[in-house]
């Protein structure tokens, strides 16, 4: 049978989708399904890993049947996944030990505070390039050991497996309790706080520190290489790629050269800059992470600036304030005024991520006068995304010898022309949108197709990338600098609002 398509599975925070792509990287078929979010306590966010597996079992055949494609026409399947979400399961039964703890979950906050004071950030930064944060997986494993009786002993006895979502899904796809392979890829492993960022292997000192027994950990593999054939859902189809979703988007945007960067604008936003095979340790509040590793080639690294609240601020404006009825209307409202009227919104709803990393910050609206209308507020909402991006780009330019020359963008907010123009204005570089918005899925497909020989090399993938739109800087430098100063002063006012971290 001719291998005409590559399949990607994007297991995201709210839904799982399966997309088929053709040789030109064009979308052939999509199937998507949401899964339930569990919020058992304030700050806790959980998923049912079994439900997510069942969701995959449904969307994959749907995507095939929508396009009337049979599994043996699929050259390979690649997986992109929500990062850092932690699943523990029993390898004999395949049953998860409790619900998966999602990356947004902040239950480990007290533990993280302890880690930051003792042994301190430096201990972790040296090994895994990540500061202790509720964001990553290792503190969650430690939390589970501390709260579930007998769990640590069972893990030491080899009765418990740990994985992020891609590990869980690949284990199930390759047979589950009867012979499923237990592996992860370097990009996902680089978000656990357990992998040594230089050796790309589990770090003995970190394992010991968190008390994680090695038998429970998956084998760390390249992001694009043959992991084995699926035995369930799509029997016989080779599984040849796994990447964390943001790394997948970087790959889908074909940012293969050092200095190339993309930002995905969703609920939050994630800017990743390819730094090549050089490991750049951030001194300005960014995360150092693995971008991808293809087969036995050297790993490519990235600097990452996660921004917690961007699209979520528009959703808040819509759902909590009710000033608009759909998200795109924010642009209509913002265009009713010429500028922000001196008003700034710093959306530090749960603290600030990159480059500040201040959990004591909370949101502020500054510059309010009787002149301010809802139009000005709408502008301030959109501009908050622009300025937060600028802060991350400044940190990247300070950390890396490669100044950003152009920013590739994707995600839902790229349909907002006012925002995209504002981004180009405040970054003072062109902002370009590619013709494929589904860059996360495309990245997983590209990596899978590359490993399976469906595409010969990165150059071919690069030729599939086409510019759909471009916004050029058009703002007077004096105005840019003056407004950036105003933004920085607004950020200062958001800091230190929470006197001490409250227990969850």
């Amino acid at each position, binding site marked *: 049978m001719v291998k005409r398509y590559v399949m990607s599975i994007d297991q995201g925070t709210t839904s799982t989708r399966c997309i088929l792509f053709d040789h030109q990287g064009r979308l052939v078929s999509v199937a998507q399904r949401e899964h339930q979010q569990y919020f058992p306590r304030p700050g806790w966010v959980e998923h049912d890993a079994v439900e997510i597996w069942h969701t995959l079992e449904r969307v994959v055949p749907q995507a095939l049947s929508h396009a009337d494609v049979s599994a043996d026409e699929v050259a390979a399947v690649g997986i992109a996944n929500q990062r850092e979400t932690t699943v523990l399961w029993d390898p004999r039964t395949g049953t998860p030990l409790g619900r998966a703890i999602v990356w947004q979950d902040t239950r480990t906050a007290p533990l993280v505070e302890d880690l930051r004071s003792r042994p301190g950030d430096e201990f972790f930064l040296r090994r895994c390039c990540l500061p202790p944060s509720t964001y990553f997986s290792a503190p969650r494993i430690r939390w589970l050991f501390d709260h579930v009786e007998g769990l640590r002993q069972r893990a030491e006895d080899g009765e418990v497996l740990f994985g992020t979502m891609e590990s869980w899904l690949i284990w199930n796809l390759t047979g589950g309790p009867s012979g499923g392979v237990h592996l992860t890829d370097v990009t996902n492993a680089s978000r656990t706080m357990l992998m040594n960022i230089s050796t790309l292997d589990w770090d003995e000192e970190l394992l010991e520190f968190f008390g994680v027994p090695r038998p429970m950990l998956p084998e760390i593999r390249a992001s694009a290489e043959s992991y084995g054939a699926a035995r369930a859902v799509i029997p016989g189809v080779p599984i040849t790629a796994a990447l964390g979703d943001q790394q997948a988007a970087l790959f889908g945007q074909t940012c293969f050269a050092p200095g190339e960067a993309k930002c995905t604008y969703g609920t939050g936003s994630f800017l990743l800059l390819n730094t090549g095979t050089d490991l750049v340790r951030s001194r300005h509040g960014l995360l150092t992470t693995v971008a991808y590793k293809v087969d036995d080639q050297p790993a490519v690294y990235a600097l990452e600036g996660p921004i917690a609240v961007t699209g979520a601020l528009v959703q808040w404006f819509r759902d909590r304030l009710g000033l608009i009825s*759909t998200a795109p209307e924010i642009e209509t409202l913002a265009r009713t005024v010429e500028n922000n009227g001196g008003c700034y919104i710093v959306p530090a709803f749960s603290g600030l991520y990159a480059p500040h990393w201040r959990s004591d910050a909370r949101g502020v609206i500054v510059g309010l006068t009787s002149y301010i209308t809802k139009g000005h507020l709408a502008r301030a909402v959109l501009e908050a995304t622009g300025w937060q991006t600028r802060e991350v780009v400044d940190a990247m330019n300070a950390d890396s010898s490669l100044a950003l020359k152009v920013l590739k963008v994707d995600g839902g907010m790229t349909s907002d022309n006012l925002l995209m123009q504002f981004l180009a204005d405040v970054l003072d570089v062109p902002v370009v949108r590619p*013709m494929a918005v589904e860059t996360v899925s495309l990245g997983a497909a590209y990596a899978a197709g590359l490993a399976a020989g469906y595409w010969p090399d990165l150059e071919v993938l690069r030729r599939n990338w*086409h510019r759909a739109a471009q916004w050029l800087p058009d703002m007077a430098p004096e105005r840019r600098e003056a407004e950036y100063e105003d933004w920085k002063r607004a950020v200062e006012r958001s800091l230190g609002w929470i006197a001490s971290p409250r227990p969850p």
Partner: protein
Amino acid sequence: MAGPVQSIERAAAILRLLASGPRRLGLGEVAASLALAKGTTHGILRTLQNIDFVEQDPATGKYQLGAALLHLGTSYLDVNELRSRSINWADALAARSGEAVRLGAPLEGKVLIVHHVFRPDDTLQTLDVGALLPLHASSLGKVLLAFGSVPLEPAVEAGLEAYTRHTLVDREHLTRALTEVRELGWAAEVQEMITGEAGIAAPVRGHGGLVVGAIGVSGTVERICDAKGVPQPALVTQVRHAARAISRDLGAARW
């Protein structure tokens, strides 16, 4: 200033009455509730029924609010919402056709470019979003005129400016062209705005089938048309496919 129109006040009262409960009401109940004569009430109900604001149950003869009224508040579609809902399909159209894609909506007697996807050849192109095109000389505008998104008369009265020697400047010619657009379900523009350029467009429909915009491809006449200057059938199919897909997403079930 003239006083309030009594029959409109009464019609509004009838609609409010029908909206006030889940139950269908008979003619007698409506008339009695509002202290109106049965004949008057029947006349108003029949008129409201003609414009789909009221429906009559065929079995019982009782009245309830009509579907058109339910969609009245949702037929307005924000242009930024329209772009957001079209973006994936517009990208797919550009990728498949190899041509630039533009989405237009009516604005003050012109076509407002709401969304623009570059021709996928990575040449230098600039975004046309926010630009205005003439209704009678663009394929997007002809679609909006043909399917009643914008009235024809004001456009004709404003004068049909000649951009090239192919521009339809005669009311008769334009009217005939629009009839053909309605019959075919798509519009073309061949060197009518700019010499050497052509375009193909199809209607984007919202709730209830109302045309809220138009999507199309445009480029050099050699690429858009065959040797005889006829729009390429394959491009027409792709444009109509994209327009139907967006319309389906916008809730225009029948298309």
